């Protein structure tokens, strides 16, 4: 139920982002989605790629500090209240969302949310019990590409 997200440490200065992008482009690895978290001094590039194991090996080889974490992908209707419905079941639990990001899919009425939970397994159980569509790994990658 969980998918792998790669995170990269980048210094917050001109020209830093392009290097990992070039590297993955050269290897034909598709960045399905990404988000950049930043502070004044550094940034963290978080991304979901088509072939995370190969991407991780390549990035490490190139000298990047790469961290792999399991995140949860959830499909929601792309309409007002879509996110709120996903968050509702967590009220009253002690599960914390460390961070999340969202993006629309190719289909008009669906969006995919990526969650970094402190307790991913418990979170998946809560989501499934609420009838929310937690995407399987392959499914998620494909959905993101649509």
């Amino acid at each position, binding site marked *: 139920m969980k998918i792998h997200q790669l*995170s990269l*440490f980048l210094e917050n200065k001109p020209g830093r982002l392009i290097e990992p992008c070039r590297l993955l482009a050269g290897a034909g690895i598709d960045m399905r989605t990404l988000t950049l978290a930043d502070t004044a001094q550094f940034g*963290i590039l978080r991304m979901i790629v088509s072939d995370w194991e190969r991407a991780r090996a390549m990035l490490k080889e190139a000298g990047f500090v790469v961290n792999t974490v399991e995140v949860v992908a959830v499909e929601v209707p792309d309409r007002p209240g879509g996110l709120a419905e996903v968050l509702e079941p967590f009220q009253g639990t002690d599960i914390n969302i460390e961070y999340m990001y969202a993006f629309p899919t190719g289909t008009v009425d669906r969006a995919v949310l990526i969650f970094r939970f402190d307790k991913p397994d418990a979170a998946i159980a809560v989501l499934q019990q609420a009838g929310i569509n937690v995407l399987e790994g392959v499914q998620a990658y494909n959905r993101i590409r649509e």
Partner: protein
Amino acid sequence: MSAAINVTTHVFHPASAPDYIPLPQMRQLQLTRLQAVVRRAWDHVALFRERMAARGLKPEDIRSLEDVHLLPFTVKTDLRDTYPFGLFASPMQEVVRLHASSGTTGKPIVVAYTKEDVEVWTSAIVRCFAACGVTRGDVVQNAYGYGLFTGGLGAHYGAEALGATVIPISGGNTDRQIMVMRDFGVTAICCTPSYFIHLVERAGELGVDVRSLPLRVGIFGAEPWTNSMRKHMEAAAGIRAQDIYGLSEIIGPGVAIECECQDGLHILEDHFYPEVIDTETGEPVPDGTEGELVLTTLSKRAMPMIRYRTRDITSLVTESCPCGRTLRRMRRIGRRSDDMIIIRGVNVFPSQVEAALLAIEGTVPHYQIILTREKGLDVMEVRVEVTPGMFSDKIGAIEDLNRKIVHVLDQTLGIRVAVRLVEPHGIERSEGKAKRVIDRRNLEQ
């Protein structure tokens, strides 16, 4: 004294008399004191006796001043290895003061003074201040740190013994320093040169023009500085800026001082016997040649230092000085032979930074220390390459790590540092020895 040989603009202070001892008498005095201090160290300091024995030497073998070259060196690690009291030559009943300064491993080095030592120290500072034209009636703002650091109390006792009015304000709280300087009619100040530059700039921001105040002399030490800094300070504050030299291991400030000629520092060699040696071979170099300054305390009782290697690089000037003092001079200290850096008067070794990082991470990441000067103050930034073990996908976790490194360095070094996490290979690799310190403070002469 005729005007022809006395260019001094200062009133002669009686305490300065030993500065003018004729050379034959000075050498005789030094020999007598050297023999006594060697005997004292032999009698009371086991490490010294062992080293003498290893060379087949006895105190009575020191028959002339040249024989000082026979004696074993003392180095900073000797103080660390015998921590805390192993080099004391006086029982604790006779020790009236302890000071400490940072060592290479976080453990401080401890120095001791008997009542007589404090008197010698005080008289040395009196002579130094007198050489800078400070006298009774002067109002001295002592902005050296009071505490374990020797600077504060050393300067305090000396200025007081001189009959000056001492303001024991210690370091920090710049706005209050400026208020006191203006309101109390301060005429002389002691602090680190970088702090003074900061103070003058801050005064400007507060609308106080230091040039319009009665302040006329600054006695600056505890960190290396340059002639260009002198010009800047003298112009910006309307003062004379004088260099004072000293180190805790020898006594504290008061080992050497610039006279009004500002052309090298006179070593108070009736108490501190100077040599300059080749750093590699340990052999003495000819006068005028650069090398490492080695000092022997001729009068110290609680903690005699025999041939202490200061790691400060200088050369001895033997030509007579127009001021009339017979004391030999040394060139200003521009650099050191080890990797110690002096930041805002605090001694820092890169190895301390390394130990702190090791304590946090369990490994030593690549790091580099960048020194800059902002608004006249030394700023130390430690750049640390992020390792996989340190990295997290969570911003908060990385910021916590950054804070933790700042905190541990703070605790270890005793000064505030900035920490910047950089990408792997973000720090340039040099061939061979890693370049741990980049000093951009413009300490050129």
